[in-house]
């Protein structure tokens, strides 16, 4: 299964993959059971913001695009 995270392709060969599992595997401060330890990050799936409480219940599908954003300075 191909998943795109921040525009980069990842190949996943296992069973069904949750958003929490993907983020955890990518090193984000999210445990497999969905606990988000980094307060200042937001994930979007295919252009829609996903609530932190839904990371575990959100199952990814072939071709899904996941974006993870954090804070930057700005004008």
């Amino acid at each position, binding site marked *: 299964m191909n998943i795109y995270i921040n525009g980069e392709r990842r190949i996943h060969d296992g069973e069904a993959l949750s958003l929490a599992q993907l983020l955890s595997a990518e090193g984000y401060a999210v445990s497999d059971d969905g606990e988000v330890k980094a307060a200042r990050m937001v994930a979007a799936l295919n252009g829609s913001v996903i609530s932190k409480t839904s990371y575990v219940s959100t199952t990814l599908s072939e071709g899904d695009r996941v974006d993870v954003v954090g804070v930057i*300075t700005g004008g």
Partner: protein
Amino acid sequence: MSDTPSHTYDRSSTALASDESASSDALVIDGEVIAGRLWLGSSMYRSPDCMLQALDAGQPGFVTASARRQTARQITDNGYWGCLEQWLGQSQQQGKARILPNTAGCNSASEAVLLANMTRELFETDWIKLEVIGDDYTLQPDPFELLEAARELNRQGFKVLPYCTEDLVLCQKLLDVGCPAVMPWGAPIGTGRGLQNIAGLMTLRERLQDAVIVIDAGLGKPSQAAQALELGFDAVLLNTAVAHSPDPVAMAKAFAGAVEAGRTAHIAGLMAERDSAQASTPVLDMPFWHQK
């Protein structure tokens, strides 16, 4: 477009307009008192400490920030934001500056709406500086995409402060769709040219007398900020002029003084310009008046 969220944020610790402690000249937007008429960006400072010192000196009403794709390490090792978050926490407890996320870098309404929703989750605020750029060379806003995004974000409960041009009809339509203020450019972002179209801006001010109008972008000198306030604009938002000064702390202080001077002058009332000279010192009883 995203669905309407189930909640909006209302975590302001600052006073409401009806608060007796609010000064009579308080800047009020969407029913909330904004702590200052100088608003500052958080970008391009040479160090987090320099940024914080400049913010202390400028005492801004809003501090702008944004959101971008980040790796796990970038989210963890975010020195600027770590410092700014702590500063903002203390500031908001004192009823001072608050965060204003932006949608910088967006070129379409759909991008801006998504990024705004991301910033709402990130920063826990409904305030959004809406930027939708239509030309990458001038960074001029795209009025059509901007209006579409503003309409949708207002529907979703955001407090939308749109970065726009001084086009009167555009600004009126942005207000009509629910924006509590408009933010026309003084000049293109980062140019420091000041108020390039004073006639157009004054038309805007005169025709939209009840609207909150903030000059956003293009200011390079404190005198230009003072001019904006003198002319009756409600606040100014800038970044580069402070961050790129050799002494950002002193420059932030200078802008704060200029904004205060400009606002005070506007309230006091400016004299009418004349075409010809008129002596300030009385000539009556001059002993040798026009004697040759």
